[in-house]
């Protein structure tokens, strides 16, 4: 039990997590274990407060998204995004979770406080132990909370070598993990091969890994120098892209569940900030080390 709460640091953003209900215990040994910050931060970016409630009332809010598990998941659930005036509410209904029926996270604009309400299935003597970034709520939370800190989430792999990081993205199955593995074999550090956070920090675009349900990784980061859009090809080639073509082709790879014009505009502006600093290339590759050498020789 961690009554006083604890802080996790993801992509340079501090999240203080605290349960206010004796029936709910936050697990610091799960997905966030390597992201724990050694001390309580005086003014964290976000305060995540966890409560057990009898029921969640979302009347008066408008439903904007419904989502379901991805095909390869075993967990059964549905997630929803609701909007209210100055608020985003993320809700997950579990159908087969042994202890939890529903979770809702209330995010209020201009407030660092995020209220997470849990409806439990049955009365239990022992507290329910949950991951503070319980799947799939954690991913949705990160998406909306990172946007407010100029952070973007992208489906991609990324590697770092010699103080430079490279990001590889494209449709599912195109070779993001393969590319990361090839770089790993050539001595680069794999930041992650599935999902990354990008944030403009000073003159750099930083790329960070982040807690994921099936990973046990230490925090890693790098200075992003180039984004490569992957294509399978019988021959290796690298083709620079610029302007709207680069922009629109990268755009589709960011994770986004955005609605309302202002939220969409903020997202588009953030993508532009990234592409003002980071070059974009289309890369066709066959899966061997030649492509790694080709990219290493490029000047950025």
């Amino acid at each position: 039990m961690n009554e006083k709460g604890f802080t996790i640091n993801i992509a340079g953003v501090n999240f203080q997590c605290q349960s206010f209900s004796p029936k709910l215990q936050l697990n610091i040994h799960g997905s966030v274990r390597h992201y724990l910050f050694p001390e309580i931060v005086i003014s964290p970016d976000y305060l995540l407060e966890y409560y057990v409630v009898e029921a969640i009332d979302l009347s008066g809010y408008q439903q904007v998204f419904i989502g379901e598990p991805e095909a390869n998941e075993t967990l059964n659930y549905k997630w929803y995004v609701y909007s209210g005036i100055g608020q985003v509410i993320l809700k997950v209904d579990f159908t087969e979770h042994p202890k939890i029926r529903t979770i809702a996270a209330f995010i209020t604009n201009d407030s660092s406080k995020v209220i997470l309400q849990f409806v439990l299935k049955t009365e239990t003597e022992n507290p329910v132990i949950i991951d503070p970034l319980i799947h799939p709520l954690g991913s949705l939370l990160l998406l909306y909370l990172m946007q407010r800190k100029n952070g973007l989430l992208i489906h991609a792999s990324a590697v770092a070598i010699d103080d430079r990081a490279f990001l590889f993205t494209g449709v599912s199955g195109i070779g993001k993990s393969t590319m990361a593995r090839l770089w790993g074999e050539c001595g680069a550090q794999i930041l992650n091969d599935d999902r990354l956070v990008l944030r403009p920090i000073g003159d750099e675009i930083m790329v960070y890994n982040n807690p994921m349900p099936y990973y046990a990784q230490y925090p890693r980061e790098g200075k992003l120098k180039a984004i490569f859009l992957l294509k399978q090809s019988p021959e290796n080639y690298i083709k620079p892209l610029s302007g709207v073509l680069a922009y629109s082709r990268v755009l589709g790879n960011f994770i986004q569940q955005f609605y309302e014009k202002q939220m969409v505009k903020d997202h588009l502006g953030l993508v532009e900030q990234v592409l003002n600093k980071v070059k974009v290339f289309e890369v066709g590759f066959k899966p061997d080390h030649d492509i790694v050498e080709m990219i290493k020789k490029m000047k950025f």
Partner: protein
Amino acid sequence: MDVSRVYVKSEGFVEKAIGAEKVLVPLTDNVANMNQVYNLNEVASFIYDNIDGEKTIDEVQKALVSNYEVTQEEALNDITYFINDMVNRGVLFAKQ
């Protein structure tokens, strides 16, 4: 094309300028679709910017001719092609 016509932009798109070019992101039920964006080149962006619910096609044509090295005929062809395409995609509407 009737050059006295006035066109208006649909509310269902968010535009993003990238240099002199533009990306239009469709909003369906207020939700953004980042996988079906429209790319506008410089001339298309110029025409799009000049369609403001007040200018007639004739005026848009004059603006295009005075800003780019195109003949009256080329300008009208470009505008006609662009507007027809954008009307078909629901980006622009003829003002009633």
